[in-house]
């Protein structure tokens, strides 16, 4: 089993570390899946901390890595699953993000030292002519093949309504206010581009209406025209909005009535999917 990747472009390194810190804010433990084409960060709902939403982040390796080599367990299973603490990875990445001279390159390798490690080799420019290398070993756990099925790509849920969200910042602003009122928040949307975010308590009902949002075009349009809603835990949503350090070009919100809110953050080379299950006790 081998993995080696090298990043040179500073914007890519920064973007990568942003994604890692986004993941780190959501969960203590995540799964890193490396295939020939993509690198995935996966937070599995059941395995993660209770309050974190499920996450499926897909990174296009060609965009991030200048060199990329992966050798899985076997020819047919040419991929690697690792479990790691994103916080540790994020801290090591941050340590050179703050350093003034930007790193020249970042090599990511899978190594076996004292334990299985994801080794980050950072090449830093130094004051003199000599290049300086910093090696960080972040311990990881390899996931055996029999457990891979747990971390398979989630199917696109059979959603009832789907809209493009307004900028996440606006949503965050609204949600932060509502957080003080209730523990649960309801997303309602119809296929005409109306999104209603609401909370209701014994004393007050608050709802924010977004109108004329664009609606993504999905193939099978069995438009019922009705409004569908799902109620989710507001803390999970807050965590998602707070942690998100990447500015997606588009965010799609899919609602499976009374079951789930599915957020789809689209970026050129990265897609993040969040799964917020409907709160049970509503």
């Amino acid at each position, binding site marked *: 089993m081998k993995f080696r990747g090298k990043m040179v472009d500073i914007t890519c390194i920064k973007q990568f570390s942003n994604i890692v810190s986004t993941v780190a804010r959501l969960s203590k433990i995540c799964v890193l899946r490396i295939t020939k084409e993509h690198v995935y960060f996966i937070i599995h709902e059941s395995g993660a901390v209770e309050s974190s939403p499920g996450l499926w982040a897909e990174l296009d390796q060609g965009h991030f890595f200048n060199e990329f080599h992966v050798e899985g367990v076997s020819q047919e299973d040419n991929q690697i699953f690792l479990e790691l603490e994103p916080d540790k990875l994020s801290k090591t990445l941050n*340590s*050179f993000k703050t*350093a003034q001279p930007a790193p020249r390159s970042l090599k990511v390798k899978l190594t076996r030292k004292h334990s299985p490690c994801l080794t980050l080799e950072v090449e830093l420019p130094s004051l003199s002519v000599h290049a*300086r290398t*910093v*090696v*960080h*070993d972040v311990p990881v756990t390899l996931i055996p093949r029999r457990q891979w099925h747990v971390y398979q790509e989630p199917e696109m849920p059979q959603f009832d309504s789907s809209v493009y969200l307004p900028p996440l910042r606006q949503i965050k602003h609204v949600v932060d206010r509502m957080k003080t009122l209730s523990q649960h928040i309801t997303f309602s949307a119809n296929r005409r581009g109306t999104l209603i975010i609401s909370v209701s308590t014994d004393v007050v009902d608050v709802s924010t209406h977004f109108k004329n949002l664009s609606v993504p075009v999905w193939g099978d349009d069995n438009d019922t025209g009705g409004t569908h809603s799902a109620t989710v835990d507001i803390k999970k949503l807050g965590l998602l909005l707070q942690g998100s350090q990447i500015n997606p070009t588009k965010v799609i919100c899919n609602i499976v009535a009374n079951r789930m809110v599915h957020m789809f953050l689209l970026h050129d080379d990265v897609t993040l999917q969040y799964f917020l299950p409907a709160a049970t006790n509503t």
Partner: protein
Amino acid sequence: MKCTIPGSNIKVFGRAIHSLARIGEELYVEPYPTGVYFRAVNSSRSAFASFHFGSRFFAHYNDGSGGQQSAAGEEAVKCKVSMKACLNVFKSLVTLVRSVERSKLFLDGEEAKLGIQFICKYGIVKSYNLPFIECETLHAAYDKTSCTNYIKSQAQVLSKAVINFQSNQEEVTLCVSSNKIVIRTFVDDVPDPGKAIHTELTLEAGEFDSYNIPDDCEVTFCLKELRAILAFAEPINLSVASYFTEPGNPIIFAVDNHPMFESTFVLATMAPKSNTQASRNKATDKHTSKPGNGQRSSASPSCSQAASWMKTPMPSTSGLKQANSSTVRRSEQITNISNRFDESRARLSSPHNSSTRGNHNPQLGNGSARHLSTQPVTHTNNVNASQLEISLPNLDVVNKVTEEEDVIPGTPPSKRAKFFFRRCFESTFDPTTVPGHDRILASDSDDDS
């Protein structure tokens, strides 16, 4: 002592205070005719910092020994002040630099206070009076000149290296060889070394201004204190020299800007442990054996080390020791009580033995009474004596009293609780099997919903 710091030097002085504050809780002020020393030592006495400001640093300097005020030959007051208080005075350096034109420092021996006065723009004068305690001079026994290894570099070189380490990293190992220096994390003391991040950084010899390493060597010391000196030296672009010999002997970092000021930081290094550092070096690197006494904080290994080169009578620590020993005594007392607890239970279960037991008991009582008399008299003391012969439930009360005595609210149940109520902590324990578990004696004080 009386001195005036010109506005241009306030920043450096303030930074020195900030740097000292990272080391210790108390700031030692020691004026001499040639200049004044500001010193600090950390609580485990493994780090010592000293800043010397020469008379040239000040616009005006008078150490207060002899001369004008008093009879000649009288020594200047040496004292210590609370670091927290002093740090508060210099808290916001940016605003100080912007507003203060000059600053006056003076030691008032009669009122036992350190006066700091900022003369600011627009005629504003801010005065701070910090009470001090007179004390002996703080002195660390070390010798730079006898150290075999010597490296010197711009502070930036080191601080750019140190920034790569995690902020919570406690210790680093500095491995030097003839052509390069490797700084790496020291992680043997964490609970699970396999879970820790290992960071390793290589610096070529060429990055250093001077480099004199006759023998390969590696020393382990605290990163926090190194950060403190770098935080001082980096903004003023001075070079930092390090002197060290071998593990177990202190490493000395020095910043020299003679004759204005110079600073020295002496850090304890970890004494060589035959099976920790050595095994880490090997490529196979199996963390099989660890030293028995967990080296959790750098205090334990380095403290003993430090004690040998740090020699000052310190009244405050002896007080601390007393406090410690009194808690130790208290726990002894508790075992005493539990002994008696067992004893009386035995007596209850076998009444026909009571006569022989009874003979033993007063003796035991005497023994513990003698023992207790060494500690400050508390009400528990009396309770013990009077209830010695009383049966189980009352002794229970005694337990409660002693327990409440040093219970800190919000702390998890202590080992003692596990000792007394052991059955409750067993995995097989089921609260519902206890008779009377369903009877609520007092309802919950606040409603959840």
